[in-house]
């Protein structure tokens, strides 16, 4: 398999439990490079956990996850799995951007310092170059004039756009979005979705856990509906949303739309 037709994310038979509660019950999913996969489902269905397993904020109990052809969290040597050392895991995570529901900007740094943090600390980019690049990214998310603001001085929508710029500063090949608009006031949702739509148009590979069915329909290449730790239905978002086959998806769509 060469780099062209290998999926950006390959998830095989992934299981995960928290104590006695099994939240992922055997997940198989491919995210081809350049595609946008939207994961939807009721709360507690395991969709956020699945996303957090991809960049290994959560470990998995069984199965395999490859990102960009690399097995996440383990090295396979002599037919055995070896848990990666922390710095090797950090290197894997560099290529995966993550945007959180509650933004998690660094409150003690200004917007531009937030965007510079990854390149300066992790990639050892010079401050001047990181600042230039951060300014470009802030420009791209429509916040060129807000670089010197602290997160507490920005609206939720602006904070989330800074968080997206912060992830992009690491030049990731995959972006994970964990309910990026769920914590926002309704009138601020569109400005974040607009940035994500622009990003998808540049060919970024994206996994998006969301409740925004219009976004999934318009931008998504694949829609995945999860319920109770399994993928119930998947396919082209326009087809799936127009004619859901499973009763559980029909019930879910009836509730969110």
């Amino acid at each position, binding site marked *: 398999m060469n780099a062209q037709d290998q999926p950006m994310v390959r998830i095989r038979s992934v299981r995960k439990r928290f104590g006695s509660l099994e939240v992922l019950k055997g997940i198989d999913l491919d995210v081809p490079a350049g595609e946008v996969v939207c994961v939807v489902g009721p709360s507690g269905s395991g969709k956020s956990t699945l996303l957090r397993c991809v*960049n290994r*904020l959560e470990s998995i109990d069984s199965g395999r996850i490859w990102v960009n052809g690399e097995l996440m969290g383990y090295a396979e040597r002599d037919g055995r799995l070896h848990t990666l050392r*922390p*710095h090797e895991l*950090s*290197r*894997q*995570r*560099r290529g*995966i*951007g*993550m945007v*959180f529901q*509650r933004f*998690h*900007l*660094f*409150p*003690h*740094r*200004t917007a531009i310092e937030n965007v510079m*943090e*990854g390149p300066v*600390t*992790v990639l050892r980019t010079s401050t001047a170059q990181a600042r230039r690049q951060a300014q470009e990214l802030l420009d791209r998310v*429509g916040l060129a*004039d807000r670089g*010197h*603001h*602290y*997160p*507490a*001085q920005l*609206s939720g929508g*602006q904070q989330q756009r800074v*968080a997206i710029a*912060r*992830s992009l500063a*690491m030049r990731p090949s995959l972006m994970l979005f964990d309910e990026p608009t769920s914590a926002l006031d309704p009138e601020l949702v*569109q*400005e974040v*979705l*607009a940035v994500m739509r622009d990003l998808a148009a540049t060919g970024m590979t994206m996994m998006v856990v969301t409740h925004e*069915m*219009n*976004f999934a*329909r*318009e931008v998504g290449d694949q829609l995945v509906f999860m319920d109770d730790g399994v993928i119930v239905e998947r396919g082209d978002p326009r087809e799936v949303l127009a004619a859901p086959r499973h009763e559980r998806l029909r019930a879910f*769509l009836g509730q969110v*739309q």
Partner: protein
Amino acid sequence: MTGEKAAGAELPIEAVRPVRPGRWLGAAVALLFLVWLAYTVIVNENLHWDVIVAYLTDGRILGGLWVTIQLTVLSMAIGLALGVLAAVMQLSDNPVLRGTSALYTWFFRGTPLLVQLIFWFNIGLVFPTFAIGVPFGGPKLIEWQANAVITPFTAALLGLAINEGAYMAEIVRAGIRSVDPGQREAAESLGMSHRQVLRRVVLPQAMRVIIPPTGNQFISMLKTTSMVSVIAGAELLTVAQRIYLGNFEVIAMLVVASIWYVVLTTIASVGQHFVEKRFERGHVRLSSRVRRNLSPLPSKEPLPVESSKEPPLPKEPS
């Protein structure tokens, strides 16, 4: 209605404040008390104000003052370093590291500082020599006599710093735990190592919680150093005691020492205020946040009004 004006006109508030006789009376009594207190202190001839003034800048007193400052700064610095180490160990996944840290704080918070100071000063009775080499009876590279190494100053520093570390550990631990776990996750998602996460993201935010109690510890330490007088530590109180044992001016010398302690703690309090402000960056209290939104921000360029770049998506019927 009288005084009613056209809509849009200004309506200034120039209200008459109510008279509060009880408060006036209380203030008068308090003021009278303070005047009386000052009077009795100033006219009291047993206080020997001339002696106090003369000894305030005495060379020995200033020497003791300098030792007090050195002991405070050094033991707080070492204590803080020990505290951070113990706190990080306490939050580790490894049970041995956690246990070691817990043992440290348990023991040094569980025994009186006075006992620890006397113990360190007399450690030569238990360990006559200190050596660097292979432990458990192996060969030694360098060896020192305890009596040569353990001066009152080093014994004081050991006692104060190690004891302080145990308290600082709890303060630092509380600070680290106060940082939202999401901060750690965001930093890890950028590919930061554990150490980078701690240094760049967690500790700077923990500082907000750590600084105020640490300032209290520092101010408390300025005065705790006086305990060192039991092992003749040559700090402010020891020196004052030595002088009054010679000239019998007990109260005057204690007043001299107290004046310097008050000066030191006052300076430290002012410093604490500025350090706290420094670490408040980004944490805008609501009142000042509202004020900032109303007035222009401390930036060079003016703030343009934010306009949504794209029209909202058309809602499709479901």
